[in-house]
């Protein structure tokens, strides 16, 4: 499973767009990129998953450049309720060995009024 690197923390304000970048230089051909969100005292929750270019759903967008060595989670017009820890994971969703799953420490996003 490819190792990922993401900022430890980020701050922003309500109504702003927030972009969290994850580096994964050793991503393999079959690997997908998956982002999770975790609120205090809760388990992580799936946000978005992608393989290349751009993926958008009702809560976020995921931008993946052509070389796939990084990805950017974009949260449009954040609110206080977006304050959480965000984790980036990279792996082959159809065949990754579960023993290699690494959540890492994630990015702690704080949104201010």
């Amino acid at each position, binding site marked *: 499973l490819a190792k990922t690197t993401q900022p430890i923390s980020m701050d922003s304000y309500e109504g702003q767009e927030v972009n969290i970048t994850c580096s994964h230089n050793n991503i393999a051909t079959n690997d997908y990129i*998956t982002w999770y969100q975790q609120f205090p005292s809760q*388990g*992580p929750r*799936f946000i978005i*998953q992608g393989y290349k270019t751009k993926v958008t759903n009702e809560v976020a967008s995921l931008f993946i450049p052509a070389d796939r060595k990084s990805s950017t989670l974009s949260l449009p017009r954040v609110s206080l309720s977006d304050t959480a820890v965000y984790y980036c994971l990279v792996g082959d969703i159809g065949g990754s060995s*579960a*023993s290699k*799953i*690494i959540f890492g420490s994630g990015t702690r996003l704080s949104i201010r009024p």
Partner: protein
Amino acid sequence: TAGITQAPTSQILAAGRSMTLRCTQDMRHNAMYWYRQDLGLGLRLIHYSNTAGTTGKGEVPDGYSVSRANTDDFPLTLASAVPSQTSVYFCASSDSEGGVQFFGPGTRLTVL
């Protein structure tokens, strides 16, 4: 749909005692996982199961055991608890190994 349930919600346990944390999913997912999350840190994989009848070790398996007798249940047992096992334990499941995971609400365990 309940998704994943865990029990108990929280527990205080004396060191040396044994305990089983319960996890049940109703999504008929093949893979299940147990993680621990220490205060302020990320999740670390303890054990996993790709399908009923099989289990595997994760990053931090020592002091823990699991079983997967059927698709729905994946209990985690601490045979002789130690204070360093104080943590929040999350159970998760996914349709396939390495797939998108769905998490339970967690069990907060304190070992004194």
